[in-house]
């Protein structure tokens, strides 16, 4: 018979066995959880309390050659509310704060704050109600204004939970100079949190300026917000886009745009554009157009008025008219066909060739070539074309870059219309005077830069350099050597001397003369072609020149499309050329030649 002691001992033994068994089970389970499957469960837990967010670097900025900002990124904020956490009685006070700082409609704000549920239906599933936890109240809110709103919201009684109303940082593309250079800079639109380039530098340099996204893994709270002192691990570094420096000089650009604005008001043309370039480097110093636009204004009217944001000096070819004569005659001088003093019969102002009439604006008979240039004689130039022959005219004008791209990295760029038609005997008399071909203003500026720089043809440059904002590394474009167009070393100087006469007494553009400086230039007036026919009463009026003529600081071309009140380039563009040149030369610190200064009145 078992004693009490034995029974107690057996029970204690059983209990001990159960306890040991439980302990062993727990130990084994603990081993499985903490050792064997540790990584799996750790990863699961980490996935629950960590979140990954994508961060974006800043889009590259645009500067002029002196480092003045032309396009930047303005720090702004998005104001967001979680309507489910805002008590209905506080919506009114919150709306009042927002409407006192921002131009918002109070009713719209209240509707957003009070809409707590939306109905969602996916496929054939029955519709269900989903709580709205993220309602955007306003975007692109100024940094300082958002700060003021935050302060006022914090002061609300009773205090709102910090996740009920918060702001998120963002950057908005901003053009601090407004209309200045807007046709060149272009603009971006905003879609799905990203800047989408639409035109201009923004579009053409997009690949360099676009930032790369980064990724951050962070510890989050139950409501999903980032724990301020929790783990924060950058899994991929974000990278800002490259900053682009243009060859544009902001001061010269401002001068050109101001004077162009006056010209636009005076002659009310459809379009007026101006290009200023340094002939010794091919760098574009200013490039302006009217009408233009303010890229900060994204109104529907602006977006629909495409004429105002196209860059017509690059994408719109026109018949250049008489400004082509300088190129044709320089070729004839270079191959020895004529000299400035060669006498040519101007036929009294009317000449028939191949049954077609060609007229001059002045009636002259036998005149030297230089007078033909000064008076812009079509007949003299056409006869020079005939003397040169079709092939030489075509090859020579093509060597000036006509029919080719200019090197400016903006899109779209037209190459113009420059081809030698078969069986057209008239072409050789029309192309040298700028008819029967289409060129862009940019191509003409490139050609005149070659004339101004002793016949050295360069590609034009708008891109100065790019800079990596993180490292300061600078990337410069490859330097291409110029092409020498003329065989005779004095060809360019002879042509320049003839062009000087154009801006003097007796020339077609004495209004373009700048006191104290020699100006070499040429006027041009050409009829406008619409749907393959010359339009009645519609003209292009142009002046192109360089100053000081013997050591030019810039080439400047001004073109008016359909001016009203005057036609000839000497009357329309000439005075503006003078006004811009006077101011630009002062800015560039080019001293006038006292011998060329006009005598004071009364002496």
């Amino acid at each position, binding site marked *: 018979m078992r004693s009490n002691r034995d029974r107690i001992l057996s029970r204690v033994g059983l209990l001990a066995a159960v306890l040991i068994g439980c302990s062993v089970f727990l130990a084994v389970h603990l081993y499985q959880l903490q050792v064997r499957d540790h990584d799996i469960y750790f990863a699961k837990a980490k996935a629950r309390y960590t979140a990954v967010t994508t961060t974006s670097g800043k889009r590259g900025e645009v500067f002029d050659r002196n480092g003045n900002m032309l396009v930047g990124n*303005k720090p702004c904020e998005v104001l967001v509310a979680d309507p489910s956490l805002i008590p209905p009685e506080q919506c009114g006070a919150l709306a009042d704060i927002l409407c006192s700082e921002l131009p918002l409609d109070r009713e719209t704000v209240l509707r957003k704050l009070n809409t707590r549920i939306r109905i969602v239906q996916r496929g054939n599933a029955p519709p269900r109600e989903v709580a709205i936890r993220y309602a955007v109240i306003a975007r692109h809110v*100024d*940094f300082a204004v958002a700060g003021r709103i935050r302060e006022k919201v914090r002061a609300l009684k009773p205090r709102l939970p910090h996740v009920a109303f918060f702001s998120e940082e963002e950057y908005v593309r901003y053009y*601090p100079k407004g209309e200045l250079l807007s046709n060149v800079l272009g603009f971006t639109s905003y879609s799905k949190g990203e800047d989408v380039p639409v035109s201009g530098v923004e579009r053409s340099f997009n690949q360099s300026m676009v930032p790369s996204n980064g990724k951050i893994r962070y510890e989050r709270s139950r409501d999903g917000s980032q724990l*301020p002192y929790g783990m924060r691990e950058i899994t991929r570094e974000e990278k800002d886009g490259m900053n682009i420096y243009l060859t544009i000089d902001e001061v010269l650009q401002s001068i050109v745009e101001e004077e162009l604005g006056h010209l636009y008001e005076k002659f009310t043309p459809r379009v007026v554009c101006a290009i200023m370039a340094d002939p010794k480097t091919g760098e574009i110093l200013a490039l302006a157009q009217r009408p233009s636009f303010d890229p900060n204004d994204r109104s529907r009217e602006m977006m629909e008025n495409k004429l105002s944001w196209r860059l017509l000096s690059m994408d719109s070819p026109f018949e250049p008219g008489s400004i082509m004569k300088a190129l044709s005659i320089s070729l004839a001088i270079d191959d020895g066909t004529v000299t400035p003093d060669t006498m040519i019969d101007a036929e009294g102002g009317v000449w028939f060739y191949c049954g077609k009439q060609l007229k001059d604006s002045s009636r002259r008979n036998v005149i030297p070539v230089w007078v033909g240039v000064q008076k812009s004689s079509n007949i003299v130039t056409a006869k020079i074309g005939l003397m040169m022959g079709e092939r030489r005219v075509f090859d020579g004008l093509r060597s000036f870059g006509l029919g080719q791209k200019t090197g400016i990295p903006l899109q779209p760029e037209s190459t113009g219309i420059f081809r030698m038609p078969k069986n057209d005997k008239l072409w050789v008399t029309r192309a040298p005077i700028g008819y029967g071909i289409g060129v862009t203003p940019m191509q003409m500026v490139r050609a005149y830069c070659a004339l101004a720089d002793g016949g050295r043809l360069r590609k034009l440059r708008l891109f100065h350099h790019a800079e990596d904002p993180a490292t300061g590394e600078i990337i410069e474009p490859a330097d291409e050597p110029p092409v020498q167009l003329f065989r005779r070393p004095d060809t360019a100087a002879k042509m320049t001397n003839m062009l000087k006469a154009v801006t003097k007494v007796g020339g077609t553009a004495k209004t373009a003369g700048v006191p104290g400086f020699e100006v070499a230039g040429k006027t041009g007036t050409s009829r406008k072609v619409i749907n393959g026919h010359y339009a009645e009463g519609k003209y292009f009026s142009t002046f192109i020149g360089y100053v000081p003529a013997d050591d030019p600081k810039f080439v400047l071309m001004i073109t008016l499309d359909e001016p009203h009140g005057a036609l000839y380039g000497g009357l329309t563009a000439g005075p503006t050329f003078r006004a811009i040149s006077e101011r630009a030369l*002062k*800015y560039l610190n*080019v001293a*006038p030649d006292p011998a060329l200064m006009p005598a004071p009145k009364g002496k």
Partner: protein
Amino acid sequence: MTTIKTRNVTAAPRRGGVARASAGFWVRLGILVQVMALLGGIFVLFSYRVSLGEKLTATARETAKIKREIHELDREIEALRIKKEDYSRWTYIKGQIDRYQLGLRVADPAQRRQLAVSYPRTSGVSRAAATAQR
């Protein structure tokens, strides 16, 4: 009948037992002190670790706050940079010139004089020093 087994305990201790008992007391006391010292050490270490952790958290909090402030200042600098560019726009400057009737105009290059400044080459006086004297 239940038999109760008893143990015969000697009433008088043996000789030398008192000395051993006294030594055992001191050993036990020594062990107790050592254990208490060990526990005290562990407590101190633990407290130090807790206080260090607290300091670390406070420092991390301070760092995060300063980082946040730096970030805010960076954004403020960016906003000011944009504002500066706004104010350096020619149309704005011209508007201000007209508004305050300042009558400013660009100097004519003919009005400017360029002065060639030559530094005297005196013994012991360097060009930099001469510049500093000026």
